[in-house]
């Protein structure tokens, strides 16, 4: 048995659809914890309204945000997985079909960057990055729609032999550039090293890690803790109107490189849309989140 074109088409469309209608459990828990520790009265209320919006989206099967963003997938192919058909085309075809059938309909967010024209289709859309998973016999799909609100503020800069102080100062510089703009409290992904493209990919992947999880690398675990405190000391707060809760998490990962060291930083807004599932050869779907 093999993973099929149809299976991939159906699942990837569902993952995008599901991601629009509820926020992940870890994110709700993060918001609840923030509500307990937040000292700014206005921010406490904004956090409560956020949780109320998330709950109402679930109860009424509504989109949490009218900006459904564009579909972004990370695909991990098991090295022992078998498939048939053009699974790359399946992701495109699944999105095309979803656009025709989803209720309520999506707004046109797919943008041609050369003309700023917007529609439902475009070059290289959905945006997909492909990885391999050693020893696995399944294909894992994670979906994280990205929209202007938080996507706009991602940044990268390349340093030569930076110290941790240099890297952390750059993270704070990018946090200041984003300011009140990215629908905080955000999840911040930081990618250090590798090459330009690898650092960006690491930063993006880091945002998928559950809030509250501890980085297995002690150096990075300590960095994440102190950066989270530093970001929350800025005072931008929920929706940028003041408070102690500007980020719910800072997640850092790295790759070895040459000595020229790109540092990439990206943000997910507070709704932190994210779904993930594995597709097995027998056609079964293992929904992870």
């Amino acid at each position, binding site marked *: 048995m093999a993973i099929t074109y149809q299976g991939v088409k159906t699942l990837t469309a569902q993952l995008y659809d599901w991601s629009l209608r509820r926020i992940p459990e870890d994110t709700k828990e993060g918001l609840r914890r923030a509500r307990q520790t937040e000292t700014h009265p206005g921010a406490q209320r904004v956090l409560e309204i956020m949780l109320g*919006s998330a709950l109402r989206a679930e109860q009424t099967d509504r989109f*949490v*945000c009218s900006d459904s963003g564009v579909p972004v997938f990370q695909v991990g192919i098991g090295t022992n997985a078998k498939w048939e058909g053009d699974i790359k085309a399946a992701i495109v075809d699944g999105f095309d079909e979803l656009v025709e059938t989803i209720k309520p309909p999506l707004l046109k967010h797919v943008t041609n960057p050369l003309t700023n024209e917007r529609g439902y289709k475009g070059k290289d859309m959905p945006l997909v990055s492909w990885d391999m998973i050693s020893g696995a016999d399944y294909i894992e799909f994670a979906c994280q729609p990205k929209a202007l609100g938080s996507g706009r503020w991602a940044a990268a800069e390349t340093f030569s032999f930076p110290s941790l102080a240099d890297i952390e100062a750059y993270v704070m510089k990018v946090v200041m550039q984003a300011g009140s703009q990215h629908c905080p409290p955000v999840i911040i992904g930081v990618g250090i090293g590798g090459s330009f493209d690898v650092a960006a990919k690491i930063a993006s992947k880091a945002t998928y890690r559950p809030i509250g999880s501890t980085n297995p690398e002690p150096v990075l675990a*300590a960095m994440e803790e102190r950066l989270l405190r530093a970001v929350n000391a800025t005072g931008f*707060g929920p929706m940028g109107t003041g408070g102690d809760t500007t980020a719910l998490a800072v997640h850092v990962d790295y790759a070895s490189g040459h000595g020229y060291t790109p540092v990439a930083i990206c943000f997910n807004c507070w709704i932190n849309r994210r779904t993930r599932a594995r597709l097995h050869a027998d056609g079964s779907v293992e929904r992870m989140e």
Partner: protein
Amino acid sequence: MNFSEYRRVRMPLSREDARSLRAGDMVLLDGEIVITAGLPTHHRILACMEKGEAPPIELQNGSLLHLGSYSQDAADGGLEILYMNPTTSTRFNPLMPRLIRHYGLTSVGGKGGLDAACRAAMQEVGCVYFSFLGGGAPLHSAAIKAVKQVAWNDLVAHYRLVRVAVEGLGPVTVGIDAHGNSLFESIAADATARMPAILDQLARDRAGA
């Protein structure tokens, strides 16, 4: 959620109500608002201004909010909005001072705030900025009572200019008031002032780690 504690204000805001609000206040909105999430829409309004023509929806002393919506034909022949949510206001910064002054807007809004030039125009005419919850589509959409008017249908749905009747829209935060106070500017200034101390603390944490 119980929102009964919040003050309710009638939209479009009277100049008096606009001046009665202070940055940081949280309120619920009742009445009529005009919304769009489109840059091309703003350019068209400016073109109307320059040609001395009236825009297709009255804006004088009104509200112009950066909210995007999906509207479609309803069974009764009217229009219905399926969902509505704010968009980032700062990308309209260069255009807003002229619009605020020309139409004497009493309220603008969206998310993320507007810049100092907008704040100055708002203080001049008596206008406030409402900060809406991003990711608030389920709440904002539930406050819609009727779609009164839709203009510029050739644009994608969220760019159209739409006049909507709402009840209990929000709570929204007064991000910029009509007296020259902007939460966005003061918070950014505080964060900038605090940054040397934040970087010192990071250095101490690294040394202790």
